[in-house]
């Protein structure tokens, strides 16, 4: 197999990948950025280089922050390959990807994984019906195509992205039928103990409060402490039902946008068999990394939300940190300079991370929306329910990999992305053991589906 040899392959062109690649290229390294999208920005700055000014205005100043990052990448010597679907990364730094129907392989000296976050699965009755999407999906439609729901939409769940989307929809004149918030009063009380630390990240907090205020001012029906969310419908969504304080509510709508936080996309770090740990605050698995972002797979680094949720600013800083370490490793930067620059970046990083414990505590997704009742589909691809999983546990299944064997759970096209966390938590709950003891799917290539012909030809 003839692989082109390069210095560094960066997977993903969100804030971490863009900042990391730009910095790496500044040291004269031969850098290739492989990105699945058709323009740089990742999901948070999706379409930033293409969005018309009116749309940028609408989306707000945080979105516009992505433009300098994207312009810097484009201006740098890094080779940006759009529309590249990376399907395999190996421990010896070979990266295989598919682009315009062609199979290609790069051999790198170091790899920076900047694959970002994905939205946490929201397994409730009816979540597979057409018309039910994630809030992130709604936002991507707005960012990349200027589209918004044509009928009054229901936003449901919790977390900053949900409120941000609500604010953006308001600015766009989109009618919001209701904001169904799963946050409870006790969540505020639980989060308060992190408030002092959060105050030091005041810009974040202020922005959040402003969002909430503008939503309130717009007099959108706002339900708080919503429980037992479910979507009604046979061929498509018809209504969202839920309970507030024991009272049953039903809101008719064809469009429900769900959100309960984001979690690291760990497909690559898992497939590399890097060590992952369970984060009880963020309720997700993250890869174990050193202070520069290097995994326990030498020469493979993670930056951004793929290594634990921190947001866009944190991601860009982590991308630069990883770049410093890689540059030193490849002998184009001295250790003293690396350490000096690294210390400055870490100071900034810590400031930006102070808000996280507060947010994680306040917007902790509800147990019943992570560990659903028996009739709810957990694995959307293979249509495996929570009840099926519990019957596998009764048969002696101890973890997600046996669940796969017993019932094909996680073996469909999404390769467990949309069910992994739920499966782990359902099994842990059924076995009454800590989630960390249950573990996660073993992820195998191809990380993105390829055809037999493509594989044969490569």
């Amino acid at each position, binding site marked *: 197999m003839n692989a082109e040899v390069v210095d560094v392959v960066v997977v993903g062109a969100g804030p971490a990948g863009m900042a990391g690649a730009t910095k790496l290229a500044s040291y004269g390294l031969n850098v290739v950025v492989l990105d699945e999208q058709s323009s740089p920005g990742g999901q948070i700055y999706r379409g930033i280089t293409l969005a018309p000014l009116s749309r940028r205005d609408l989306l707000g100043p945080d979105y516009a922050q992505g433009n300098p990052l994207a312009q810097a990448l484009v201006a740098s010597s890094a080779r940006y390959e759009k529309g590249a679907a990376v399907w395999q990364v190996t421990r010896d730094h070979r990266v295989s990807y598919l682009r315009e129907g062609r199979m290609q392989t790069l051999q790198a000296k170091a790899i920076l994984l900047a694959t970002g976050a994905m939205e946490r699965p929201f397994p409730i009755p009816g979540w597979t019906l057409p018309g039910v*999407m994630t809030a*992130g999906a709604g936002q991507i439609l707005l960012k990349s195509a200027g589209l*918004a729901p044509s009928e009054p939409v229901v936003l449901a769940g919790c977390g900053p992205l949900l409120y941000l989307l609500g604010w953006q929809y308001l600015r766009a004149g989109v009618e919001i039928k209701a904001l169904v918030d799963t946050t409870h009063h006790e969540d505020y009380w639980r989060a308060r103990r992190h408030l002092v630390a959060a105050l030091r990240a005041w810009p974040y907090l202020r922005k959040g409060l402003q969002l909430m205020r503008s939503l309130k001012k717009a007099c959108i029906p706002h339900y708080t402490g919503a429980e037992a969310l479910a979507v009604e419908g046979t061929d498509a969504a018809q209504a969202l039902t839920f309970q507030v304080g024991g009272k049953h509510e039903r809101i008719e709508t064809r469009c429900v946008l769900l959100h309960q936080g984001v979690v690291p996309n760990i497909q690559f770090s898992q497939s590399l068999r890097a060590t992952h740990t369970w984060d009880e605050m963020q309720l997700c698995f993250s890869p174990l990394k050193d202070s520069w972002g290097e995994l326990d797979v030498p020469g493979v680094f993670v930056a951004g939300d793929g290594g634990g949720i921190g947001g866009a600013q944190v991601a860009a800083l982590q991308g630069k940190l990883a770049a410093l370490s890689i540059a030193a490793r490849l002998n184009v930067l001295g250790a003293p300079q690396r350490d000096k620059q690294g210390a400055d970046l870490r100071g900034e990083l810590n400031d930006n991370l102070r808000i996280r414990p507060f947010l994680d505590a306040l917007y902790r997704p509800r147990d019943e929306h992570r560990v659903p009742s028996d009739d709810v589909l957990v694995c959307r691809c293979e249509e495996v329910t929570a009840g099926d999983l519990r019957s596998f546990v009764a048969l002696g299944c101890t973890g997600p990999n046996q669940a796969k064997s017993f019932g094909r759970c996680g073996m469909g096209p999404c390769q467990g*992305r949309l069910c992994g966390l739920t499966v782990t938590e359902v099994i842990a709950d059924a076995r009454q053991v800590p989630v960390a003891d249950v573990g996660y799917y073993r992820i195998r290539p191809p990380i993105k589906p390829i055809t037999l012909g493509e594989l044969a030809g490569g």
Partner: protein
Amino acid sequence: MPTEPLFQPVTSESRPTRTLNLTFNGKTLTVPAGISVAAALLMVGVTRFRATPVSEAPRAPYCMMGVCFECLVDIDGVPNRQSCLVEVSEGMKIRSQEGARDLIFQPVTNQALEVQP
């Protein structure tokens, strides 16, 4: 087939400067250039993109960012394309995927070979 679109351009969007034609299940549709196939289908009123191979349940895009694989469609004879990751182009022929694919009774292979370099 298309019903009332679930998504539409927000009012502040200027009219698209470029549009193009494509077909969905044989019906010709005009959509703005530069957007994803999934976005285009949603704005012209396609609510059901496929039926699952397991129970033939209806599905449509869920994540719009390439992780859920719910938006799979057949594009120009190539099945299982993630429509949220493919940009529209002139003359594109899109078909919904109904249940498990039939390798035999679908003139897929030759077309697939033609469009791939």
